[in-house]
């Protein structure tokens, strides 16, 4: 673990630079620890795959003070490990919503049923949330579903679209341009400023396949 200055008013805790369950556990422990003890002067904490960025108010705390506090954190004690939540997210894999399902079928030489089974049977780890509000970086995708991004990104991917890209799977919380292969859609909102966050870094995520009529019903309830 290395603590480095990151610009004028931030520092970065860099853990071993590989994506792994072990490193994730470390990041998670530090992140929950930092969230629970509120250190006066910390403005924001950004946990990522192998790092934590901390922004601070330099009129309250300076880099060397904060570095001292952070380097003194002892996370060896198992009580510091947060409770693990499993968040179930309904996904409809109907062809009308899985815009790239047919392409994915062809490229991966898998049937739609096999794709759905592979995608919805794994328990995924939320390594981090970033890129845009509520966007989860999930670990644990079945290697059989590894597929390159689309060569030409879509100009608009609808909010709630569930996609595959390289070794990742995820959900677009907002309608944005993007190059992921879309295999389905969730009717629930992944980011709503009026609701508490649906998922947090460190949670586990499970996709629950639903049919089109259930999707439409849940989608209606959401409006």
């Amino acid at each position, binding site marked *: 673990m290395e603590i480095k200055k*990151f*610009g004028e008013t931030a520092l970065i805790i860099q853990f071993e630079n590989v*994506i792994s369950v072990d490193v994730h556990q470390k990041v998670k422990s530090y992140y929950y620890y930092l969230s629970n003890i509120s250190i006066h002067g910390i403005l924001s904490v950004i946990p990522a*795959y192998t*790092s934590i*960025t901390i922004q601070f108010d330099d009129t309250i705390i300076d880099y060397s003070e904060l570095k001292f506090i952070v380097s003194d954190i002892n996370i060896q004690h198992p009580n510091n490990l947060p409770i693990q939540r499993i968040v179930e997210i309904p996904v409809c894999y109907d062809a009308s919503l899985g815009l790239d399902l047919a392409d994915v079928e062809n490229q991966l030489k898998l049937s739609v049923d096999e794709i759905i089974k592979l995608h919805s049977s794994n328990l995924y780890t939320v390594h*981090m949330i970033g890129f845009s509000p509520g966007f989860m970086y999930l670990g644990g995708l079945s290697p059989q579903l590894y597929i390159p991004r689309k060569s030409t990104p879509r100009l608009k991917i609808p909010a709630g679209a569930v996609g595959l890209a390289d070794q990742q799977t995820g959900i677009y919380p907002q309608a944005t341009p993007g190059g992921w292969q879309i295999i389905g859609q969730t009717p629930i909102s992944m980011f709503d400023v009026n609701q508490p966050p649906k998922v947090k870094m460190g949670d586990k995520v499970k996709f629950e396949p639903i049919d089109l009529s259930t999707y439409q019903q849940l989608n209606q309830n959401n409006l």
Partner: protein
Amino acid sequence: MSFEIVDGGFISTVQDKGRWGVQDQGIPVSGCMDVASANMANAILGNDPSYPLLEMCMKGVTLIAHISFSAAFYGADMEIKVNNELTSQGKTIALNPGDQLKIGFAKKGVYGYLAFKGVLDIPKVYNSSSTYLPAKFGGYLGRKLQKGDRITLLCPEQIPTRHSVIKARNISSENLLECFVGPEWNLLTDQQKQKVINSEFTISKDINRIGYRLESEKIELGNQKEIISSGMVKGTVQLTSGGDLIIMMADAPTTGGYLRILNLNSKTCDSLAQMNTGGKVRFNIIN
């Protein structure tokens, strides 16, 4: 309702000190692009720097007052008229019912700030009034201001001018950007580092509240063109896999996957925000 927008300008939004503490949800900080100018506009009226104000990009708003209050403008060189009479930035402007305040195109600089004596009655989202346009939340209904918008000021007040006119914001089309080395600076070869330090960069057309893309001869990267996604802050200079530099600004995503080679200090982010397409910059590492 205290005043009504009759012309929304180009991209005019409500901003404040930003939305802190929710970056772990992927929510950008947002807030003013040129914090120093915004603070000055508030300071002229004796407001705390936390007061929300209007940020106007390239062209200002025109509003009609329905009650009496004071306002102050600071930042880009925009023409300011009250009932067709020229006034200037850096001073208290008294407005009475029926008065029209018109803020024109920026002749120099990009962002102008209009502060009010009284608090803009804008609901807070995660403890901030800042507008974040990409996800359509915060500020005035999560969008830029347009004709017909009506805004209320809480505790509006007209105050006497308490000081002489503050000198206009210093704006230049050339800038030496003060910066610290970033987390991936040492992944660059000496040759690449020299190129970053010794080159002059031109501000491209691709500039907005998220970031400023610079143009220059490409900086060819070796094998490592990306990193495992990690945190970014305002002022982070990313070197893309294509060899271009992007400086992250107020609405920057919380994380990114390109090399973070430098970080501008906050004063430099402010002055960069006032630079437009075609402006010339160089980097000056200060640590």
